[in-house]
């Protein structure tokens, strides 16, 4: 990096709020999302889903469907060929390919209501629907289990005969629904509890909630006769889709080109595949393009959610409020296949605080629910709900201000986390101080209302990214990003390139490339794009600057050491040369004569991501006769390093807060006695609407830029969903007069708690 972490005052583009490069397409309806593609000869694909929560598939008879006029292909799990299997990096970490495949089309067993069992491709949606009815599936219905505690119980129906708990010694003799037991900790927990002045404890639970992106999953797949295939889809990672399709269908990666559509929200839920391998398998069978679009009901039944959790927590502290020890057990729903983010829950639970003695135990538990997918800071919000509630109890017990107790215990640079990282460039304490000084916190709580405070953490990651910078012959620039733009990242990529190149933002455009047009990149997720792909963009732009300086030096016949790049032009610093600066435009127009096209592509494995910390304040009131909660004021603060485009950073804070408020108050998966989902619609899965929320004030804390990023950026997308659950619950608990330990805080639950008191 030429001058890593440039000072804010010198910056001309970074920190401004320009209109995003893809903005006009998005406000005029021109932007092409997953379901907007249409190819000649395209067929409609539909998926037949299990009506049962748990059933053995005895037989699938597709003959009648195949005989129906207009049906061109029928597929089942038998059409997949996962070969050696292996693992692929998906939203929550390593994911077994065989399980992703079996989630796309069931193999042997239907493990939840809505589990895909077969698929058809037909010449019209009506024929496809009729064909689904003609597929006869013979099931042996099995006992099901939905609840996480019931799934752990000894007599629970077992989902997978070959699932033995990992992390237990000796290896268990019997299969169970506990996929993994995670243990981590340090110090002497029993000793610290024995020596404690005060202790608090609690039993907490949260419901499964869905990411709730407004765009349902959608894709078009076209298999070529020579095997070369194209997939258009909305996902958080075109390379991830390619990898999973290749492994599930046993195809070479280079035969699959994945073209990223615009993506209508993901929040982690589009870091895996549901439809793409199915559409490609159908297309392989009939040689025609196949489009599959999920209905909203299918989205709820068969994609996404994140884990519901059951947690027990105990804290020990001194009289002064210093937390000396914590013990916590976390049980997370994984859904039908192993892979809940419980390990991330354990790692993040106390990441905001300096606690010497820790004991954390996590259980990853399968049950007859859809397989969980990553959701914004996967695993962290539930854990933080328990931790931040317990700290609130501690503050009450000691008569301390809720921000003060968090400052007292807050992590500072140099401290050690339980998962091995050392805290660095961390502004957690400064952030809390700014939050405390904010007019919201300084305003007394209005009569009849209560105020809750809570904090949250996310690691943020770096990883593999590629980017290219192309200088056009007229001096304009195109930045080629490798990551789908889910929330305005084209803007930040273009801004960082413009800053390095000294160009006005209008001269820089940004495009998102398909898998054949740019080097590999990890997915858009983990709050990594502005950091990692941004770093690749900066490095590519810096290489271009070096090239431009070289060309200017050649033009002037001077040493390159005497050429500086200032405000988009090469300037000669050799006093012996009387030459005018050479602008980008001038250099670009001569590129053919000075060495050919000016372009650079950089692929990196970005190291040095800095963690993010947030803290939120929520004021709310409750209708005492109905238990209905109204959020009246909300402020979110976050340690962001440096905001590249502050509006989009604020937007991340506001959007995450809104999702967290929904999680706290009304969102949940509701199951009936047969293990079927009762509320698979936006009508009854109640996400916040515009009239449910107040304005959401934000504080972007920029006192500790990340020294490992050219402009100091830290990931910002995940943290904002971590604090709201407890911020809301802490306020509700005050009004109710007792600790609210189960989410969501629905009107009936709150009223019952008020009446119990």
């Amino acid at each position, binding site marked *: 990096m030429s001058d890593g972490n440039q000072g804010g005052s010198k910056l001309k583009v970074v920190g401004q709020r320009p209109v995003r490069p893809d903005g006009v397409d998005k406000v005029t309806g021109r932007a092409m999302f997953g379901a907007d593609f249409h190819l000649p000869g395209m067929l409609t694909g539909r998926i037949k889903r299990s009506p049962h929560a748990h059933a053995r598939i005895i037989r699938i008879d597709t003959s009648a469907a195949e005989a129906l006029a207009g049906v061109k292909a029928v597929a089942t799990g038998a059409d997949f060929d996962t070969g050696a299997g292996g693992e692929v990096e998906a939203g929550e970490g390593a994911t077994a390919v065989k399980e992703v495949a079996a989630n796309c089309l069931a193999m042997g067993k239907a493990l939840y209501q809505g589990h895909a069992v077969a698929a058809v491709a037909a010449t019209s949606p009506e024929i496809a629907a009729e064909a689904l009815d003609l597929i006869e599936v013979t099931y042996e219905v099995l006992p099901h289990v939905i609840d996480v505690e019931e799934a752990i119980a000894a007599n629970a129906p077992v989902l997978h005969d070959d699932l033995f708990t990992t*992390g237990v010694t000796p290896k268990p003799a019997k299969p169970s629904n506990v996929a993994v037991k995670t243990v981590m900790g340090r110090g002497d927990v029993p000793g610290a509890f024995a020596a404690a002045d005060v202790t608090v404890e609690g039993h907490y639970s949260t419901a499964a909630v869905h990411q709730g992106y407004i765009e349902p999953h959608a894709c078009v797949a076209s298999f070529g006769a020579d095997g070369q295939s194209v997939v258009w889809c909305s996902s958080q990672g075109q390379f991830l889709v390619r990898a999973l399709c290749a492994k599930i269908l046993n195809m070479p990666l280079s035969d699959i080109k994945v073209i990223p559509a615009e993506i209508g929200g993901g929040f982690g839920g589009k870091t895996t595949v549901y439809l793409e391998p199915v559409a490609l398998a159908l297309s392989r069978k009939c040689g025609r393009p196949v489009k599959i679009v999920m209905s909203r009901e299918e989205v709820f039944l068969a994609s996404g959610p994140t884990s519901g959790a059951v947690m027990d927590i105990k804290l020990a502290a001194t009289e002064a409020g210093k937390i000396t020890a914590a013990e916590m057990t976390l049980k997370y729903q994984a859904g039908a296949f192993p892979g809940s983010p419980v390990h991330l829950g354990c790692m993040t639970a106390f990441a905001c605080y300096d606690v010497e003695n820790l004991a954390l135990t996590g259980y990853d538990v399968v049950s007859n629910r859809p397989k969980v997918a990553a959701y914004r800071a996967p695993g962290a919000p539930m854990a933080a709900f328990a931790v931040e509630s317990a700290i609130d109890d501690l503050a009450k017990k000691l008569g301390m201000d809720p921000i003060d107790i968090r400052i007292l215990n807050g992590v500072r640079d140099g401290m050690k986390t339980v998962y*091995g990282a050392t805290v660095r460039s961390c502004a957690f304490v400064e952030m809390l101080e700014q939050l405390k000084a904010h007019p919201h916190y300084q305003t007394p709580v209005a009569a009849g209302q209560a105020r809750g405070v809570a904090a949250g953490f996310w690691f943020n990651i770096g990883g593999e990214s590629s980017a290219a910078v192309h200088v056009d012959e007229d001096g304009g620039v195109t930045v080629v990003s490798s990551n789908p733009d889910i929330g305005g990242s084209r803007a930040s990529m273009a801004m960082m390139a413009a800053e390095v190149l000294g160009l006005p933002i209008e001269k820089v455009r940004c495009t998102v490339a398909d898998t054949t047009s740019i080097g590999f990149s990890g997915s858009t997720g983990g709050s990594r794009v502005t950091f990692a792909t941004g770093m690749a963009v900066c490095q590519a732009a810096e290489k271009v600057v070096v090239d431009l300086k070289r060309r200017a030096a050649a033009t002037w016949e001077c040493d390159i050491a005497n050429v500086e790049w200032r405000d988009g032009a090469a300037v000669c610093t050799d006093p012996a040369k009387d030459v005018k600066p050479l602008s980008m435009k001038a250099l670009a127009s001569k590129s053919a004569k000075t060495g050919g096209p000016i372009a650079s592509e950089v692929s990196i494995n970005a*190291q040095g991501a800095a963690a993010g910390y947030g803290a939120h304040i929520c004021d709310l009131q409750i209708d005492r006769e109905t238990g209905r909660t109204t959020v009246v004021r909300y402020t979110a603060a976050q340690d962001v390093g440096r905001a590249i485009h502050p509006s989009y950073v604020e937007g991340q804070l506001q959007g995450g807060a809104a999702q967290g408020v929904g999680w706290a108050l009304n969102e949940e998966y509701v199951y009936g006695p047969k293990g079927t989902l009762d509320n698979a619609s936006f009508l009854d899965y109640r996400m916040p609407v515009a009239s449910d929320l107040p304005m959401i004030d934000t504080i972007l804390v920029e006192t500790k830029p990340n020294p490992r990023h050219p402009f100091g950026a830290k990931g910002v997308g995940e943290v904002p969903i971590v604090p709201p659950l407890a911020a809301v619950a802490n306020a509700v608990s005050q009004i109710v007069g007792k600790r609210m330990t189960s989410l969501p805080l629905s009107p009936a639950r709150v009223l019952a708690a008020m009446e119990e008191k």
Partner: protein
Amino acid sequence: MPRVQSISSRVRDFTGGLDAFDVEARTVRALIRELDARFPGLGELVEENMAIAIDGEIFQDALGASLGEASEIVLIPKISGG
């Protein structure tokens, strides 16, 4: 001798429940060879599917990194996100 700790349950299955042990190695490549020698299969697991924290910094891909006499190494599951 560098001290290796693990917070991964999968590692525990290879080590017979051990969460901390010393390994004589000065590079991550050597560490992985050493892990495979002592706990067959563990080195490969770490190389393919795990992140490593070395003296407080998390590496998603640490093969080239060197280790000090008193390095603290933590084997952790790879972190992704939403």
